[in-house]
């Protein structure tokens, strides 16, 4: 049991992968980009991987019957969560909606160029960070 805990702890520390899903770049006004102020906005939401959750739950059960039950619960839940996914599923789809207001605060003048939109995932065991990152250049 102690070894199992060490393995999980070390796996949590050393694992962590970053995945880039989408990258979009807007038009670039050279003067604004070179002379302007760079800003970055990052919002994220915790994503959950149910398959990894079930696999982790199985680690803490001893008998085969419990493994089967955990797998059955996971299979039933999967039927209720069908659909295309980018990264892991989240429970709040509106977490990125604050970006528009954040852009306004970062660049009150509104003169923005070279805006890049990045959708990425920072993956950890069971959970992940579903990240939307916006960078741009604000002209005066």
């Amino acid at each position, binding site marked *: 049991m102690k070894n199992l805990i060490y393995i999980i702890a070390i796996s949590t520390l050393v694992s962590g992968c970053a995945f880039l*899903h989408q990258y979009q770049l807007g038009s670039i006004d050279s003067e604004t980009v070179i002379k302007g102020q760079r800003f970055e906005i990052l919002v994220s939401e915790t994503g959950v991987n149910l398959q990894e959750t079930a696999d982790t739950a199985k680690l803490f059960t001893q008998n085969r019957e419990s493994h089967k039950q955990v797998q059955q619960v996971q299979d039933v*839940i999967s039927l209720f969560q069908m659909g*295309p996914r980018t990264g892991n*599923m989240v429970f709040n789809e509106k*977490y990125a*909606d604050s970006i528009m207001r954040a*852009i306004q605060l970062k660049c009150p003048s*509104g003169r923005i160029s070279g805006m890049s*939109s990045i959708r990425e995932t920072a993956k950890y065991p069971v959970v992940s960070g579903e990240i939307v990152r916006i960078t741009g250049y604000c002209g005066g």
Partner: protein
Amino acid sequence: MLTRFLILISFLGLGACAHSVHLYQADNSNSFKGQLIESNSEQKVILGFTQDTLYVEQAFDKLKQQCPSGRIEGINTRYSTSLGFLSWTNKLRMRGYCQKGT
């Protein structure tokens, strides 16, 4: 037995509000002056069978209709899917600033 049933029901409840955000795009702008306008469109898909992605054009057209003689700047687009039982709903949300007289 009751405990397992309750755990299953609670997981199902959590599963009912699962979403996946595919992309969020923020476009350049020249200014934030103007009226904030917004449009939404959805497409229900059952078992993956769907013929088109016209909900994208619908959202864009709805946005343009709210600003018929103006310029729309700083468009933010969010494309996400709400996961469901043997089906899902694709959603598109667009927001922008309508600048009239430009």
